């Protein structure tokens, strides 16, 4: 994968750094060209980093595929974008699967989920629509995750212990493995441990503190996309 350039810094310092692109994504929703600067104007591409990233997304080995002609002889495949395999995959999980996904990871379904359809623009009967991210969906997802995580952490001896460098690493690792269907990287574990042991230190209820850690993992793109 070509996009792994996240700095290995503390969560506190990463937060403001990441807030910028997330906000940028949200504002860019109104103009998709903002995202890749595909406006066709050379002057748009002043940002060297953006160019480098865009280049890294491009197809490196174009297969020799078939050609498809329209009625007027136009080559239909000419409309394909120049993207590599596997780089354009983050698709938000639909509302209808969230119950199953929460059950898979937490063993429980947040009670509020059943009443939350309107926060996700759940499509009407006989219709389909991909879930779009918005302030509403993101806030609701965190709220639901936190609710489900509180159910999980209200029992279990491991959630009765205050986080430290050792137990946070284990519990974070377990949360991430379960929710993301993969093991955490050392950097990810460090960030999560930092969150549990330091950033959430003002939360006096230790089980609630673990619930916040859990909810953070469940509110990440690694869990929310498929």
């Amino acid at each position, binding site marked *: 994968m070509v996009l792994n*350039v996240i700095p290995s810094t503390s969560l506190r310092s990463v937060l403001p750094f990441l807030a910028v692109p997330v906000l940028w*994504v949200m504002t860019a929703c109104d103009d998709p060209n*903002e995202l890749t600067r595909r406006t066709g104007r050379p002057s748009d591409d002043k940002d060297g980093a953006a160019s480098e990233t865009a280049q890294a997304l491009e*197809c490196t080995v174009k297969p020799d595929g078939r050609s498809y002609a329209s009625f007027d002889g136009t080559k239909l495949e000419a409309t394909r974008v120049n993207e590599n395999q596997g780089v354009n995959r983050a698709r938000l999980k639909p509302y209808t699967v969230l119950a199953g996904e929460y059950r898979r990871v937490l063993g429980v379904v947040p009670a509020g989920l059943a009443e939350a359809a309107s926060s996700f623009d759940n499509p009407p009967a006989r219709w389909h629509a991909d879930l779009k991210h918005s*302030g509403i969906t993101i806030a609701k997802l965190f709220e639901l995750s936190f609710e489900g995580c509180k159910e999980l952490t209200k029992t279990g001896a491991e959630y009765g212990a205050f986080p430290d460098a050792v137990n946070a690493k284990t519990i974070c690792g377990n949360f991430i493995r379960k929710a993301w269907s993969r093991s955490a990287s050392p950097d990810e574990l460090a960030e999560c441990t930092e969150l549990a042991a330091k950033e959430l230190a003002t939360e006096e209820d230790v089980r609630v503190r673990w619930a916040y850690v859990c909810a953070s993992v469940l509110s990440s793109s690694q869990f929310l996309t498929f």
Partner: protein
Amino acid sequence: MGKTLRRERTTEVHSTQRTAVVVAPWAGVHRLGPRLSSEAVTARSAQTHSTPRAAHRLLDPIQVMRLPSRILSRPLRISLIAALVPLLAVGAALMPKNTAHAEGAEADKAELNERCAVRLSIALLNKSAEPKELTSNDPQAAVDSMVASREFAEHFARFTNAHFNAAPTEHVDQDPVYALAKYVIVEQKPWADLFVGPYSFAVSGPQLEVKADPNGLGYFRYEPWLVRYAGNEDQGYLLSASFRLLQNTIDLELIPSVGVAGEDNSATGRQRSPCNGCHFDAWYALDKIARLLPRKKLEGEQVKMQPTTDGPQELLNKTVKDDKELVTSLVQSESWRFAQCRNVFHFLYGRAENQCESKVFDACVTALEEKKTIQSAVAAVAKDPSFCRN
């Protein structure tokens, strides 16, 4: 009516929107300032809900966020940030999925299989994966049984209905696309039957039943569908239905022009440049297609359809005698196969295929050509290793 149309492909736009989710954390770091208009921030902040208390506590460090304080008031900033906390809190983890460090190749494979099972189940069945699927050694081996299921039929029928229509409708009788797509999948009929099959429809309680009808032409002769897309052409020609027929079969994308005051929108006006391009001169000439379809007739407030009397039309580079020959020609074309497999990619990936995926796309077309069913086309893409690679 201002029905001048021009061709425009929007696939790339759709695709780049999706790319953003992956790319944005790195690509947009330096771009905040100019993009954060106060209106945009206010609009997005207004959408946020409250979040649990510690989330707000977590936000305090974000006071150092490099947002211009003159743009955001503190309440706005807090509410906006509150909505972002879930993403930010594990922002460091918003990384490519193969950064994992599982113990050994076997564990890596197990994790990859688990992610593959999750993806397949949601993409094909719109549901979370079953426990036994999560531990499967080869999740893609289940694709054939998945596409043979009722859940797939429901999911793909909904997808097709949404792709072929402009907006959802409350009226079940106006949704023949959904009913027939589901029927064709469940009965394992050729996908072409959706467009040219001998069927008609009847409302039965909350459902629209599909019935055999030798005079049927997919759903294109079903009167409620014709009424839904009757449009407002002054002589009753179904220009809207003509476009919809082309969009459904070969994914032709046209955008209506905005008419200007005093513009002649009659057939005479449409024969003048630049309207004639789409309406009379192109291989898909909308007015000529409309002359092969029934014509709208108003009886009081009721819209009725009456048979066409215009005779054969020069279309698709030949003389086409009626709507059946028109749709059959479209469905037998390369454009139709291409459009249906592009739909398959939209269904499975949420975007069109890209240049790097042309071989997988070709496999989809081959499956559609040889096995005829949409299940086989979907399976060709979903079973390809690239679908579960990361």
